[in-house]
């Protein structure tokens, strides 16, 4: 029997700018067990809810993550709105959907670049991030912020996108999709990519469900679960079908994200075509008294903001369960059997966001 050794992976590692630590138990080059550790940068942002008024906490919620920042704000606002019985105007719902899908686009393109980098495919990495830049430019143009948008608020949105700008965005979608399909074709059909990813760290459908996997990690294993199906924001009007793959390997997790890029472009296109005229927000009266588990589908999967108000201007509790925390047990199960050299690619395949996890 080969001698077992423990190799530390992280908390500082070239493929991950954020700190997560894995103790990899190896037999020769093969991983046989994994023990994860987090908590190096825990910020305690949940407790700030007791010091910020419920309308101000949106700014804190948005800063939980630098990638899906808009969706954290959206999830928080939807939770407060549900508790207070606030009906958001339709135009605000469509704008929220457009910005959410822009966030998903730039998050997936960021991930595709990092994943290509993890595979050693530098040119593909640069092409992916080049396309991501154009999404960030749209976000900056329409909200004023590339990373933190600050447009979502309790009761609606702060900014409108004028018709001329929406038309400009619509015209830009076709050439943008064409470029995305060019790099998507490489991710999906290139022999070296397939050779590197297919059959690597398979997570079966039953395992993914039993371990509580969410987002592309779950959908790549055949679990057809996407919270956009519940029709929050404008998804109910636009119609939505989750992207699902069945192989459960690293290639399938990559394929789901590539196809979700196309799906997001289509959603933005239809949202621009169908967006109604009308007000952007409603006046918020009173204070939240009650509780709600607000759920939104982020790029990495389902995020939950449990919010509880006691009738004062400060919420009594905000508990945020981010998708990466839910995807750590599946990661621990999918790593054994992989070679040490494949560990960075497998870890990246769940698209870990430690900033979210260390909220």
């Amino acid at each position: 029997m080969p001698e077992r050794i423990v190799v530390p992976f992280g908390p500082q590692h070239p493929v991950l700018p954020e700190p997560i630590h894995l103790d990899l138990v190896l037999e020769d080059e093969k991983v046989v067990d994994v023990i994860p550790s987090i908590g190096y940068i825990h910020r305690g942002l949940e407790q700030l809810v007791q010091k910020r008024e419920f309308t101000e906490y949106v700014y804190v919620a948005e800063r939980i993550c630098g990638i899906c920042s808009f969706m954290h704000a959206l999830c928080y606002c939807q939770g407060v709105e549900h508790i207070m019985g606030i009906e958001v105007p339709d135009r605000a719902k469509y704008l929220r959907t457009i910005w959410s899908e822009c966030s998903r686009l730039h998050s997936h393109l960021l991930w595709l670049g990092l994943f290509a980098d993890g595979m050693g495919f530098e040119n593909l990495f640069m092409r992916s991030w080049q396309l991501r830049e154009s999404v960030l430019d749209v976000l900056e143009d329409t909200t004023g912020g590339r990373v933190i948008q600050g447009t979502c608020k309790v009761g609606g949105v702060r900014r409108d996108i004028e018709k001329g700008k929406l038309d400009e965005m619509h015209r830009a979608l076709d050439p943008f999709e064409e470029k995305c399909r060019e790099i998507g074709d490489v991710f999906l059909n290139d022999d070296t990519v397939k050779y590197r990813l297919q059959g690597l760290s398979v997570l079966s459908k039953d395992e993914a469900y039993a371990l509580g996997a969410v987002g592309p990690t779950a959908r790549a294993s055949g679990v057809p679960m996407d919270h956009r199906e519940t029709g929050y924001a404008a998804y109910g009007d636009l119609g939505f079908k989750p992207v699902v793959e069945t192989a459960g390997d690293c290639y399938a997790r990559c394929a789901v994200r590539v196809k979700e890029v196309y799906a997001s472009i289509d959603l933005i296109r239809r949202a621009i075509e169908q967006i109604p005229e009308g007000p952007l927000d409603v006046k918020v009266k009173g204070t939240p008294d009650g509780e709600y588990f607000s759920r939104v589908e982020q790029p990495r999967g389902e995020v939950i903001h449990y919010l509880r108000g006691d009738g004062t201007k400060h919420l009594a509790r905000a508990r945020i369960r981010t998708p990466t925390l839910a995807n750590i047990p599946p990661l621990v199960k999918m790593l054994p059997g992989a070679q040490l050299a494949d560990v960075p690619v497998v870890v990246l395949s769940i698209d870990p966001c430690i900033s979210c996890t260390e909220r």
Partner: protein
Amino acid sequence: MTVNEEQTTISVALEDLTREVEALHAGGYRLVQIGCTDIGGAYEINYSFDKDYQYRNLRLTVGPDIEVPSISGIYWGAFVYENEMHDLFGIPVTGINIDFKGTFIRTAQKYPFSVTRRGGDPCRNA
């Protein structure tokens, strides 16, 4: 097609927790999260489950030093939430499949959200 989401919450006693969780597991529910809330000297622990967007929440209320049994024998992935519960709130959880003994989340101050153990005393997980 839009799916309607429903959320239900039921209170459970400490001695019934494992049985109720086993019933949900047998019913095909996935574990969504476990989260704690300080309710003025005691803790409310929400065990959340989901099946086809139907959200079921088991609510357990315990005193600050009451040991809570782990459900990681039923839901393997529960260890992340139970270690978090211990490390942030100082709630002793017995029988976690991967028990980090207080080192899963390495905060500068031990048990930062605990009502009685803030600042730290040794890990009491059995």
